[in-house]
């Protein structure tokens, strides 16, 4: 018979106590797993956004935002300026962007490098409901929106064709082959896009010149997306140069927005990890507590073991074995509970966050649990090893 078997048989007899001790570990580990899982999902989402939009810049008309304030109270912002800018400004934008990329990547080629997708937004009424018609350069738009999928029909090719976002198709009750009356002219719906989860889903896309002509906005655009080819491209520098050199437009690198969001995510994560740490420490004290009472419960047994030849070291070892067992049980429970918890708190902390369980945290969770249980068992084990045979056996 091995020492481990003695510990195991004893633990089996005290299942409830062992489970209770394990719960102390599990609570702390659960908090950690939940926080890390949520933090990871939050980061993943921001990274996914950066991956998707990262190399992009957005050029919009320069509007000044006037902060409306009453004392310390912010009442919102009032945008002042035009909703459009001249399409020809995009030529200058292209020059700046291409030069910057050429310089950054050391390209000699003279051709166009950046993809520039101009857009003209017109809020109008279609089929009796209000709808947003967006004039696009079909080819360039497709290059920028690499995630677009045509789910029905085909993509826009001709001037009198339209492709609908998924939601727009549903709300307008229009499908492939239907026609819609746009500014008095017949336009044929040739395709419907798959859902993207963005505003694109609600839009009706028609070639830019058609929209400009039909709504009397020749030579004007509302915005342009720029894709700078590579994630290493100096998007932020390009944005700065555009803002400096071209009056009337404002350029923002999507990366800047994402980084701001990332900073916030990181702050939230740090806060949550701190809370999880505190929970772990509190849980550890719980373990110390239950272990000390289990030492008291077993004073007699420990006394007997010493009387038949157990050394202090062997008594300590028995407690360490038990702590490892408690740690493993607590770690497994904590991992399971933490993962479940993350599914609950994830969407509360980051809106609509899709949480995926992280199997990679199982190992560290077990390690952490065993470590906490082992550390928490040091003092109780020491106390147990100091028990004097005569006193322990007399006490009963």
């Amino acid at each position, binding site marked *: 018979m091995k020492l481990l078997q003695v510990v195991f048989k004893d633990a089996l007899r005290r299942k409830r106590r062992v489970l209770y001790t394990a719960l102390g570990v599990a609570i702390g580990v659960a908090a950690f797993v939940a926080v890390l899982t949520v933090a990871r999902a939050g980061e993943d989402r921001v990274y996914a956004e950066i991956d998707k939009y990262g190399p992009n810049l957005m050029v919009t008309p320069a509007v000044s935002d006037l902060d409306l304030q009453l004392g310390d109270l912010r009442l919102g912002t009032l945008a002042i300026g035009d909703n459009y800018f001249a399409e020809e400004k995009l030529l200058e934008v292209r020059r700046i962007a291409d030069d910057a990329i050429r310089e950054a990547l050391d390209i000699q080629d003279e051709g166009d490098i950046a993809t520039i997708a101009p857009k003209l937004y017109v809020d109008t009424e279609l089929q009796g409901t209000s709808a947003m018609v967006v004039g696009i350069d079909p080819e360039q738009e497709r290059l920028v929106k690499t995630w677009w999928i045509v789910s029905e029909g085909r993509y826009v090719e001709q001037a009198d064709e339209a492709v609908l976002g998924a939601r727009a198709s549903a709300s307008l009750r229009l499908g492939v082959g239907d026609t819609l009356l746009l500014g008095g002219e017949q336009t044929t719906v040739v395709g419907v896009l798959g859902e993207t989860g963005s505003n694109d889903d609600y839009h009706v896309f028609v070639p830019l010149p058609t929209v400009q002509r039909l709504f009397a906005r020749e030579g004007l655009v509302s915005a342009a997306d720029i894709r700078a080819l590579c994630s290493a491209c100096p998007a932020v520098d390009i944005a700065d140069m555009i803002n400096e050199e071209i009056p009337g437009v404002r350029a923002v690198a999507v990366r800047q927005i994402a980084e701001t969001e990332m900073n916030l995510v990181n702050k939230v994560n740090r806060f949550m990890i701190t809370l999880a740490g505190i929970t772990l420490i509190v849980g550890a004290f719980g373990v110390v507590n239950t272990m000390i009472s289990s030492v008291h419960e077993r004073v007699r*047994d420990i006394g*007997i073991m010493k009387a*038949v*030849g157990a050394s202090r070291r062997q008594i300590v070892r028995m407690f360490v074995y038990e702590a490892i067992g408690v740690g493993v049980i607590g770690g497994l429970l904590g991992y399971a509970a933490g993962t479940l918890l993350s599914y609950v708190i994830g969407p509360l902390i980051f809106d609509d966050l899709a949480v995926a369980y992280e199997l990679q945290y199982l190992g560290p969770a077990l390690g952490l649990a065993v470590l906490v249980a082992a550390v928490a068992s040091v003092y109780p084990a020491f106390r147990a090893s100091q028990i004097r045979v005569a006193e322990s*056996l007399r006490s009963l």
Partner: protein
Amino acid sequence: MLEVRHASKIYGSGPARVAALNDVSLRVEDGDFVAITGPSGSGKSTLLNVIGGLEKLTGGQVILDGRRIDDLSENALVDIRRKKIAYVFQQYHLIPSLTALENVLLPLTFGASNGHAEQRAMELLRRVGLEKRAGHKPSQLSGGEQQRVAIARSLVNGCTLILADEPTGNVDQKTGIEVLQLFEQVNRDGVSIIMVTHSPEIAHRARRIVSLRDGEVVSAG
């Protein structure tokens, strides 16, 4: 051979001071069977405890096989318990989560086990007539059976001295006689026994009787 020389044990201090043992001397030759009797409070259990190193002496010495053991460190005492001295208690003191066989094996778990541990433990259970109860937990055994398991446990290490504290105190008279017969048998095999009892009947079955009163030896046979 065990020798107790001028042992004294004082509890408390000042006016609350109680002398549990007062200049007690005792010799136990190898293979002896000594009963220590006396009314309660006479110091008989204290004497047994100081012999086994469970309590420290205030004065005097305990010498086992020519070596002082009353001043040994905890670690050195562990060695004595594994090789020389075993206990049998009034309350049996078996580990409730272990079976009879496992309880007998327990000392070998802590000490050096020679590989035939299970065989030896089983043989001892047979010797105390409990081979059929080997897989039972203490809660499934009668008092007498538990005490026989405890005796088997005291023998498994091959100790040469058994200290028994009221071993028949918790069982009926008939079972008490059986336990005593078992001790006699063990004693015939060469193991020395020092047994504390308050019952003169039980004491008379030992080879020698040492009577204590108020911490002093009043008669030694």
